[in-house]
């Protein structure tokens, strides 16, 4: 089971937190901080697995993470998950985000955390991996967005576009951060 999924930036600011186990808000924040602390001090060229033991209930759990430009994607899982599988899942997640947001950057996550949640919900359900096929995920997301648009076309879309445009101009995070072609897992594992 996946116990928690966290996304935070290089400064530890949370961009998404999804806990599949009940923690109080304070504990959640503490977990985010600790995880950031553990993950951020690791070199870039070490492995993507981290056995903290202190975090989220005991030594059975481990952190599997990936670092993309300004963002850390961290999955906290127990021993029943395949390490390689989760590593691949993170990749699929990021690639899906990239597809849904068209060249995803940190700002997309900042301003549309609800959408990120919706995408995640198509991949992981209640801590269990639901779907790993990116095309299937994107199809379902598109269908739901279409449904949403048909319900709320008056006020949703124009505003969204406007803001997207505006924050790109204003913010230093406006550059496209996850634009570099993501190495596939096969690639990184040297087929």
């Amino acid at each position, binding site marked *: 089971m996946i116990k928690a999924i966290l996304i935070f930036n290089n400064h530890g600011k*949370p961009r*998404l*937190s*999804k806990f*599949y186990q*009940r923690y*109080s*808000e*304070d504990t*959640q*924040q503490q977990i985010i901080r600790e995880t950031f602390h553990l993950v951020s001090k*690791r*070199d870039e*060229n*070490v*492995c*993507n*697995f*981290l*056995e903290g033991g202190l975090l989220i209930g005991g030594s059975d759990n481990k952190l599997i993470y990936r670092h993309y430009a300004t963002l850390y994607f961290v999955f906290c899982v127990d021993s029943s998950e*395949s*390490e*390689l599988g989760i*590593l691949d899942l993170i990749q699929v997640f990021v690639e899906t985000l990239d597809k849904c947001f068209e060249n995803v950057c940190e700002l997309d996550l*900042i*301003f*549309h*955390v*609800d959408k990120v*949640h*919706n995408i995640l*919900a198509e991949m992981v*359900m*209640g*801590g*269990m991996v*639901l*779907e790993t096929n990116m095309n299937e995920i994107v199809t*379902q997301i598109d*269908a*739901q967005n279409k*449904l*949403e648009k048909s*319900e*709320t076309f*008056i*006020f*949703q879309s*124009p*505003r*969204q576009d406007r*803001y997207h445009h505006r*924050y790109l101009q204003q*913010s230093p995070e406006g550059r496209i951060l996850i634009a570099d072609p993501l190495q596939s*897992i*096969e690639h*990184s*594992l*040297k*087929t």
Partner: protein
Amino acid sequence: MALKMVKGSIDRMFDKNLQDLVRGIRNHKEDEAKYISQCIDEIKQELKQDNIAVKANAVCKLTYLQMLGYDISWAAFNIIEVMSASKFTFKRIGYLAASQCFHEGTDVIMLTTNQIRKDLSSPNQYDTGVALTGLSCFVTPDLARDLANDIMTLMSHTKPYIRKKAVLIMYKVFLKYPESLRPAFPRLKEKLEDPDPEPRLGKKLIEPLTNLIHSTSAMSLLYECVNTVIAVLISLSSGMPNHSASIQLCVQKLRILIEDSDQNLKYLGLLAMSKILKTHPKSVQSHKDLILQCLDDKDESIRLRALDLLYGMVSKKNLMEIVKKLMIHVDKAEGTTYRDELLTKIIDICSQSNYQYITNFEWYISILVELTRLEGTRHGHLIAAQMLDVAIRVKAIRRFAVSQMATLLDNAHLLASNTQRNGICEVLYAAAWICGEFSEHLEEANQTLEAMLRPKVTTLPGHIQAVYVQNMVKLYASILQQKEQAGEKEAAQEITQLMIDRLPQFVQSADLEVQERASCILQLIKYIQKLQVKEVPVAEEVIALFAGELNPVAPKAQKKVPVPEGLDLDAWINEPPSDSESEDEKPKTIFHEEEQRHSRHRQPEIDEEELARRYQDTPGVEHIPVVQIDLSVPLKVPGMPMSDQYVKLEEERRHKQKLEKDKKKKKQKKEKRGKHHRHNSLHTESEEDIAPAHHVDIITEEMPENALPSDEDDKDPNDPYKALDIDLDKPLADSEKLPVQRHRNVEDLKSPDSEVPLAEKKSKKPKKKEKKHKEKERDKGKKKEKEKKVVEEEEEEETKKSEPGVGAAVVAESQEAKKEQREEQEEEEEDEGKKSSKHKKKKHKKEKEEKSKDKKKSKKKSHHSEEEPPESVQNGTLEDEPLPPMSSYRLLAENTYIKMTYDIQGNLQNDSQVTVSVIFENKSTSFLKSMELNVLDSLNTKMLRPEGSSVHDGIPVPFQLPPGISNEAQFVFTLQSIVMAQKLKGTLSFIVKNDEGSTHEKLDFKLHFSCASYLITTPCYSDAFAKLLESGDLHMSSIKVDGISISFQHLLAKICFHHHFSVVERVDSCASMYSRSIQGHHVCLLVKKGENSVSIDGKCNDSTLLSNLLDEMKETLSKC
């Protein structure tokens, strides 16, 4: 232009959306908290508005704030409101928020049951999808029980998107409601298509997988293959031929992974190795060199993995070597976390399986002593525990241990003077105790005693000083005895004087325990001194204080003491204190604290936090000047042996042993030549051959006499998956069927006054959780009245549904169901009147208003009713006589495949609608699908069809029915006039699917809308009732029925139940009753019972309706 205006107004309506909020927070970096609290205030305003879009927007923002650490549980009710929005956009927002912040403790969570059920059966697959996703995050045991059947049904949904989610969420349901596993298991198995694929699949897979491992060059494929092979071999280890070749291959390939420069591969290789290690330790042990190499890796994750592997790889033969390597790493390690990890691993490795691999305990004690030189470790207590354990349990080692501990005590300043090394001074606790307890082995007891009496000792933590004080007396006693026996009177008096001189420093200790012990002992020794002056020999008596030997007790010994017959440990000795008392006064705390204090002194294992706190709490510590020792000089405690020398000694010893053995073997061979083949045991010495250095008797831990053997205590009681440890092969019992949505079977007599006792009765119910809820709910005076109302209503429904064993009761006619109904009746009677709120959430609003009116009335009336004798407040529940079982579900139609029963409910929300609930029960052994229900509309009564469909289109039933399963669907009908009963003809068409194929079937039925079904049970108060009768607007009619044999109470119950009335007042055999139609007709009845007859006078706004109603009543009563 027009569009602009629309946009403008919408912009105003949405003060801020999520993006605005995020932007605002980013622009207020200085005063973020203040800005957010402003936003929360705005959100609270938005939540008060009726517009669902505004509410959804507010909830969306709250979800974001939750991520930033803000508690949003206060908005739980609003979240539920948004969840029940009809638009998917809002629903999704609501479910997301719920999934982020709902949990088992959320008090309003039971309000979601019906909403979720509705969404699960929604024709829109994405409504179902978000409901499933949300539910997977916050499912509670109650939700799991109530919705298990609905989710089961979804496992056969037409859309794979839903089936996928439904199958997955079942796991969560099982965890929360394990009873559902067995009934659902056949279905799950079906989903796998193969009835029992596991064992055969595994066997078949091994070979192709092995081939793949051989041939592939893709590392990831290799890893997954190896992983699968390991998993298969582990699961099949019993009854499978030896697969050592496959394992060997896996290990070889894993070695390649580990040797790779890619860190991820290295890690995965080590991980897979540790899986193999469990079943095939020998295969992995041959790669010890590689694993040890990994300890040098720069990556901590890799090092920890390697450590983990080493733990499983040690043997008698290689323990010393491995530990030696680890000790080198301890010295090299930077950063305390990893070093502490190393330390615990060394101790784990050595102490595992009762010190199985240790052949030389002198070596181990040396290792422990060497570990005490670690700076700043947090694990001093671990080392101390090991020292104590070994010294107590290995008798032969005591002399050596005592000498080592004496040296430690002598060098205590090295350990204790550095504040950074506070954790390590725990070992002094062990050292002091060992020296004291086994002081007969001490050579220089005087010196040790003096070391313990040094002024520096008073800077140690209190619990250690206390042990010092206690054990210096033991030392003193043995010195005294020694001197007396040797006749050295002066020396004996000197040592007494030393004690008297030095003990006062402990008497002044701020630590109570130290102070108390020291002052007792000081007085004792002063007394001894007096005796010594008189030349009385005292040593024997003093030593008698500490006579006897301590034996170790097994950790599970306490649990295994059998409970003597007739002793009930759970029974209260005294009357239990009431809840409020224990909260206010906390009488237990005295005991509690005392216990803690005791454990502090007895157990060397104390958790780190507590230690830290203790150091802070110890007064005076911070004033003591700390002398920093020069750490640039490598620490070497004089006189301490280096553990390395033992490694060398051990090698020599083993070599000797081997030579001797070889000699013997050669002899044997000479004798038995011809029988034996030559074998290579000369070189690969098996570990059984290694004899311990000297005879070591590990004292076994004591167990109580007649201890019960049990394995149960090895299981973790907190394991959340334990609940799923269920036998799946046992056939299903009827009682195990999944609960299906409950329907009211009995309606009751309802007194307006039952409102108040209701709450009390509820709280008496055994379900603690609900009780708690209820009380909480009542206590929350702040909560809005309307909110509270809904909670209560829903809760009652919940309670009803949560009755045990209700599962089988769906088909109300069945025998079991009747039995159960009887049991539940009493409770159900109270709940009547709220039933109508059953399925549609929106209904609550109207009812809320009504209710609050009712409540006001009841308050006014309360004086009045209290004075009345209880008999006149006729409430059905007051009668002793049990009511017969009743069901409102009538048979609609039935054939060999399917049985339909139905019930009609008026719709409070809409004055021209009724809801028909139909239970479909699959009676066949086939699968029923594509069910479609259609009726022939009349001018007056029409079935509500989706927009755009014609009157000839049927409505699809939103589920399929596997064999033996029943489920309920609802259909809404619109009516113009309700004064007459109606009958509609209809047809159910469905496809029967079984092994032989599919057939199309039809079942015709007649749907009977009685006038009673337009009535809604509405409570009325006698004063309001009297006014109604006086108004003179009502038409009147009467009936009389003869031959009535049932009791008056049963008769009233029947009228209430089948005709939707409530009792206003009852006096003897006369009762007034009231009901209201969906279109607002008042119906008043006066029911009088004669000898064998009943007469009913009715008054109603509409004479046709009244006469029809009375006719229906006559029919009901004539059956009695």
